[in-house]
């Protein structure tokens, strides 16, 4: 289902994750920012096994800059073609230095939204963010996601129980709210890089 998908943007490309990304993605998971994500693999071998075991129904992307450097990851999972919804997740900018001044996170999410709503014809995306990650909650909301509720004490992250903030986005909200703001941030970076 997903073996040929590649999403091209102006600053980044999303290509499917491969087993040989195991060492790099594992190293990202050890970084400071990743402390706010769910616990991942304990070593590179486990990470490789996890990648190899991903079902064909998932889209697990690597975010690459245009020079080919892999800087992060992002996934679309739980795709339900009857109810036309899916879950975004596993979102991490692993190489933070390479992402400075580049709208990598914004464009990567825009490419994922376009893929979900325009190619897969979904009408709704949802995801959860740990309540101890207010930067990500703020970011997702500014770019169109709506808070739909909380699952209390859902995650044990960073040494404490945290709520899962449930966020959702409908296709028309993406087109009227998310994409204009995403395009503005991409345009700002374009001018700065000109």
């Amino acid at each position, binding site marked *: 289902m997903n073996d040929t998908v590649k999403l091209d943007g102006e600053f980044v490309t999303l290509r499917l994750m491969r087993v040989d990304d195991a060492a790099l993605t594992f190293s990202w998971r050890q970084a400071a920012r990743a402390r706010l994500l769910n616990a991942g693999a304990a070593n590179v071998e486990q990470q490789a096994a996890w990648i190899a075991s991903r079902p064909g129904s998932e889209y697990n992307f690597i975010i690459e800059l245009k020079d080919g450097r892999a800087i992060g990851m992002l996934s679309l999972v739980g795709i339900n073609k009857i109810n036309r919804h899916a879950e975004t997740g596993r979102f991490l900018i692993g190489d933070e230095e390479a992402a*400075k001044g580049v709208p990598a996170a914004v464009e990567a999410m825009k490419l994922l939204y376009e893929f979900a709503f325009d190619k897969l014809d979904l009408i709704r995306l949802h995801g959860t963010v740990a309540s101890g990650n207010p930067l990500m909650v703020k970011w997702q909301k500014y770019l169109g996601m709506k808070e739909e509720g909380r699952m209390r004490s859902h995650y044990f992250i960073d040494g404490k129980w945290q709520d899962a903030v449930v966020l959702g986005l409908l296709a028309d909200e993406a087109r009227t709210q998310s994409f204009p703001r995403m395009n503005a*941030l991409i345009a700002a970076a374009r001018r700065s890089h000109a």
Partner: protein
Amino acid sequence: MLNKEAVLEIILRALQNLNDELGDDEKFEAGPNTPLFGPNATLDSLALVSVIVDVEGDVSTALGRSISLTDDRAMSQEISPFDDVQTLLNYIMILVNEG
């Protein structure tokens, strides 16, 4: 009417808020000349959005009307408002002075 010093204070407070949320190895020096999202950028787009949200909110509250830093007008500026603290300050002052 907001003056330039008050707007600068809002921007620096947003940068400080961001610093408070970042891990120890991600913190940066926030000041009137800090590069933001342009050349020699300090911020990635995750961090930039945090600053935009805080600044838009605080300036809008102080002005009593909403401002947007990511609308068509912001996009059409010859110099990106997000290059550094000074370009952001100058762009906000344009919006403030229109009131």
